[in-house]
C-alpha cells in the first residue's frame, strides 16, 4: 500500500477511535474542539493497542500497524447505543463563521503547517535524544519485529543505554507506526500533532476573545521560537504539551461548567501526557492537588477527593504499564533511574530555580515576549480588578513551575537548560490562555466587538 494512502487510512481510523472515546465520555464540547481532540486521543488509543500487541508478543509488522488502528477505532464504538447518541447530537451543534482576520491568520498558519510537513518528510531524525532513544528503539523494533529488540539485547550496547531508550513510549510507538507505513524517518506524526494542538488552542482563544486579539495571541504561541522547530522535529516534549494542555483546559471547563464528560476527557488527556513524558505524572498530580480547593468550591471536598483518586489511579495505571510492568516483566535491562534520584536539597532547589528563571524562562530567544508580557498584564489586571480572573490556569502554571523545580532538584538527569527547557512547552500555551482570560483583554475584546458591530458602547 502506498505510504500516503496508509497515512490517510490510519489518520481516519485514529479520528474514529478518538471520536468514539469522546462520544463515550460525552463532554459538552463543540465539533471544532472535538475533531483535533479526537485525532490526538486516537493516536493515544492506537499506541495503547499496539503496546498490548507487543505485550502479547505479536510480531510488529506493517499489517499489525493497520490492524491495531482498526482495533483502536472499533473498541470505543462497541458501546454503540451510547456512542451513537452523541454522534447524533453533533450535526445540530451551532456553527460560527470565519472573519477576514481569521482567514489572514489561518493563511500564515497553513503555510507554517506546510513547511512543518515538508521538513518532517524531507529531513532525517535529527535531535540527539531522539536518535539515541525514541527512534533507535522504534527503528530496531521495526527491523526486529519486536520491542525487546537488539537495543536492549545486544551485549555491546545494553550496558550503555542511559535514559533515552527508556523514555515514556508514546512518541516511540508513533515512530514505529509511521515507519511501518513506509516513511523513511517516521516523524510525519509530529506536524499532525502540532496542527491538532494549535487548532485546539486557536478554538479556545477564539472562544474567549475578539478574533483579532485571539489571532494575535495565537500567532505569538504559534511562532514561539523554541516551539516552532519542534513542529517537525521528533521529541517527546511537544507531544507531551499537546496532551497536557488540552487536559488542563478541559479540566477547567469541567469545573466551570459542571461537565463530568469534560472531566473524564481531561483525564484521558492527562493519561496520554503520562504516556508521553515520564515526569508528567509528577506535574499532573501536583496540578490536580493544587486545584483541589477550586474543585471542592465548585462541588464538595468529598466529590473533589473522589475525582482526584479516580484520576490518579487511571494515570498511575497508564504510567505503570510502561515504567513498571514493561520494564520489569519484559525488558532484559533496566534504566538506572534510582541512581539518578538525589533526594530533596534546598540549596540545589535554589540553584535549579535561579537557573530555570534566569537562563530559561527569561530568555526571549526561546519563548518570545510571552513571559515578559504576562506578568505585566496579570499585575495590571489584579491592581485594576482586585481579583484573579483565571485562578485555575494560574494554579496549573504555579504547579508546573513548582514541579519543574522539584524534578530538576531530585533527578540528576533533569538538566535545567535541556530537559526542563522543553518542559516549558506546556507552560507557554497556558500562559497565553491565562492572558486571554484577564479582564484587561476581555475589556479590549468587548470594545473591539462593539466597534466592529457598529455599536457605540
Amino acid at each position, binding site marked *: 500500500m502506498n505510504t500516503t494512502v496508509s497515512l490517510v487510512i490510519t489518520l481516519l481510523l485514529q479520528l474514529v477511535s478518538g471520536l468514539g472515546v469522546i462520544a463515550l465520555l460525552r463532554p459538552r464540547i463543540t465539533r471544532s474542539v472535538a475533531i483535533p481532540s479526537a485525532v490526538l486521543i486516537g493516536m493515544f488509543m492506537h499506541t495503547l493497542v499496539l503496546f498490548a500487541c507487543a505485550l502479547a508478543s505479536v510480531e510488529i509488522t506493517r499489517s499489525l500497524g493497520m490492524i491495531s488502528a482498526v482495533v483502536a477505532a472499533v473498541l470505543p464504538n462497541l458501546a454503540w447505543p451510547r456512542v451513537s447518541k452523541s454522534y447524533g447530537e453533533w450535526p445540530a451543534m*451551532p456553527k*460560527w*463563521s*470565519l*472573519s*477576514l*482576520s481569521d*482567514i*489572514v*491568520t489561518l493563511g*500564515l498558519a497553513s*503555510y*507554517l503547517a506546510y*513547511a512543518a510537513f*515538508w521538513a518532517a518528510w*524531507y*529531513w*532525517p531524525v*535529527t535531535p540527539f535524544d531522539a*536518535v*539515541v*532513544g525514541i*527512534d*533507535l528503539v522504534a*527503528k*530496531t523494533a521495526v527491523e526486529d519485529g519486536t520491542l525487546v529488540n*537488539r*537495543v536492549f539485547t*545486544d551485549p*555491546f*550496547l545494553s*550496558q*550503555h*543505554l*542511559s535514559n*533515552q*531508550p527508556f523514555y515514556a513510549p508514546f512518541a516511540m510507538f508513533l515512530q514505529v507506526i509511521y515507519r511501518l507505513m513506509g516513511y523513511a524517518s517516521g516523524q510525519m506524526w509530529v506536524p499532525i500533532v502540532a496542527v491538532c494542538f494549535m487548532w485546539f488552542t486557536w478554538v479556545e482563544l*477564539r*472562544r*474567549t*476573545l*475578539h*478574533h*483579532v486579539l*485571539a489571532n494575535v495571541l495565537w*500567532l*505569538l504561541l504559534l*511562532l514561539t*521560537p523554541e516551539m*516552532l*522547530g519542534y513542529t517537525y522535529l521528533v521529541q517527546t516534549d511537544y507531544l507531551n504539551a499537546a496532551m497536557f494542555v488540552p487536559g488542563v483546559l478541559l479540566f477547567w471547563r469541567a469545573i466551570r461548567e459542571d461537565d463530568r464528560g469534560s472531566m473524564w476527557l481531561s483525564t484521558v488527556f492527562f493519561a496520554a501526557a503520562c504516556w508521553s513524558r515520564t515526569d508528567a505524572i509528577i506535574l499532573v498530580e501536583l496540578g490536580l492537588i493544587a486545584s483541589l480547593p477550586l474543585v471542592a468550591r465548585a462541588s464538595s471536598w468529598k466529590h473533589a477527593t473522589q475525582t482526584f483518586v479516580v484520576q490518579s489511579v487511571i494515570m498511575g495505571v497508564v504510567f505503570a504499564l510502561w515504567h513498571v510492568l514493561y520494564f520489569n516483566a519484559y525488558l532484559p535491562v533496566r534504566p538506572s533511574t534510582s541512581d539518578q534520584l538525589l533526594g530533596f536539597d534546598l540549596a540545589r532547589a535554589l540553584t535549579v530555580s535561579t537557573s530555570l528563571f534566569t537562563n530559561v524562562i527569561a530568555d*526571549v*530567544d526561546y519563548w*518570545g515576549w510571552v513571559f515578559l508580557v504576562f506578568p505585566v498584564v496579570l499585575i495590571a489586571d489584579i491592581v485594576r480588578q482586585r481579583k484573579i480572573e483565571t485562578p485555575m490556569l494560574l494554579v496549573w502554571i504555579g504547579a508546573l513551575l513548582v514541579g519543574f523545580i522539584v524534578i530538576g532538584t531530585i533527578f540528576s538527569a533533569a538538566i535545567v537548560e535541556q530537559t526542563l527547557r522543553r518542559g516549558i512547552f506546556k507552560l507557554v500555551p497556558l500562559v497565553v490562555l491565562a492572558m486571554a482570560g484577564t479582564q484587561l483583554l476581555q475589556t479590549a*475584546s468587548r470594545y*473591539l*466587538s462593539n*466597534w*466592529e*458591530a457598529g455599536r457605540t458602547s
Partner: protein
Amino acid sequence: MTDRLPVMSRQGVILAIIMVGVIYVLISVGGDSDANPYAASYQSRIGLYAEKRDSLNKRRQMSERMFARHVANYEIPQYIAPRLRPTDTLLLPPMSYGNRYMRDKAYWTDPRFFAWMVGFHNVIPWNDAARRSQANAFIVLEPNMIWIARRGSRNVNIDSLLTEYGREQ
C-alpha cells in the same frame, strides 16, 4: 466571542489589514538584530527552507539528506562499518578525540548513535573500562583522514593512540 458578523465589512477589512501588519512585523521586522526573536526564529526554521526548497528538493536520496543534516556524524560511521571484519571488536574513541577533528560534536562516538547510523556491530565505547581491553580495532583520525588500525599493524602504535584518546579526558 463567536458573534456572527458579516465577513466583508469596513471594520472587518480594517482589522484584517491590521492583522497583516502584525504578521509582517512578527516575521519580517528586526530579525537581524536581537529586537524580534520571532522573526529570527521564523527565518532560521521556515524562511531558510522556503528560500532553498528547490535546491534541497534536488537531493532525492535519503543518504544525501542524512549527510546534509548529520555531516561527519553520518560520514564517519558510513566509512567505518563496511570496513569492519567479522573478527573485529572496535573501540569507539572518546568524544573529545572526535571533536578535535570535527566542526560538530562527535556524536558518532556514542555506541547508540553509531548503531542508529549503521546498525549493530561489535563496538565498545571508550567509557567501558571493563571491556576496553577486548578491543582489537581502533579508529585513527587525522585532518581529512580516517582509518581503522588493528593490533599488530605496522603504521600505528596502539598504545600511543590510546594515550591520545585519553588526552583532554
